[in-house]
């Protein structure tokens, strides 16, 4: 019975916001950037000139349903 605590009521303890936020902000930014490169770079918008990124992930972009060209 060691997993039953004396705390009244039921529920689970949330992870403190202060612990989640730094990871969410910095991790979230980098991860969204990765999705941007797979999904939209050199399509509607471009950070690099040329079409290499677009052509390289071309099939994945189509099959993942991003507007491609």
């Amino acid at each position, binding site marked *: 019975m060691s*997993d039953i*605590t004396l705390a009244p009521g039921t529920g689970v303890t949330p*992870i403190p916001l202060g612990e989640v936020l730094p990871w969410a902000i910095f991790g*979230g930014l980098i991860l969204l950037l990765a999705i941007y*490169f*797979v999904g939209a770079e050199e399509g509607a918008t471009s950070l690099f000139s040329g079409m290499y990124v677009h052509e390289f992930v071309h099939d994945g972009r189509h099959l993942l*349903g991003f507007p491609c*060209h």
Partner: protein
Amino acid sequence: MTRDLLIRGMIVGVIAGLLAFGFARVFGEPQVDSAIAFEEKMSQAANEAAEPELVTRATQAGIGLFTGIVVYSAALGGLFSLVFAFVYGRVSSFGPRSTAALLALAGFIAIVLVPDIKYPANPPAVGNPDTITARTELFFVMLVLSVGSLAVAVAFARRLHARYGAWNSTLIAGAAFVVFITLVQYLLPAINEVPEQFSPNVLWNFRIASLGIHAIVWATLGLLFGALAERLMVKQQPRYRLQTAR
């Protein structure tokens, strides 16, 4: 804890990406090839010069497809774990496995299914290059409205919870979400750039393959991440355990 969850989310994302790549290779690539063959036939008929091949088809269908799907899926897995870390214990009192499964279901509906109903995936040869900016904008508007309204619906269900109970408040908020999305999809402009002679069979198979890829990714995220998070949180970190009333 968040760091441990993020690492697990990204690892599960990579595994989901590998499974989705296998599926895409078998069920998606034949449709892409048919669409490209159609594209070439049309440009030949119009006497247009063939587009120079910057990346070979073999690379696009192999390492290119692999990279695209695995990077997308790993990033999605990471984001999934971050949202999980935020909602766990805040939205419901479900344990890690149920929270992950429900979150994945919500993600699949809001990020994949709802936008896909309005602006479905298109194979090569479908879509006018001149409208790519407008199409991309509309796609992201649909995506943001879909994710935003689902988040609002969840908050709404929580407000109704005390008065109507879990079952009825979920039904009411779910119905509100469906009505709002129907209205949005009715009002947003339709896009139809499918060429007249394009095979409807290829189009259907392509779109179903696209949905299948996403279904594999989200199912893996929900179930496998849930299992890993359960092990991490319940077995190793007693403070995140379900606290049972006495």
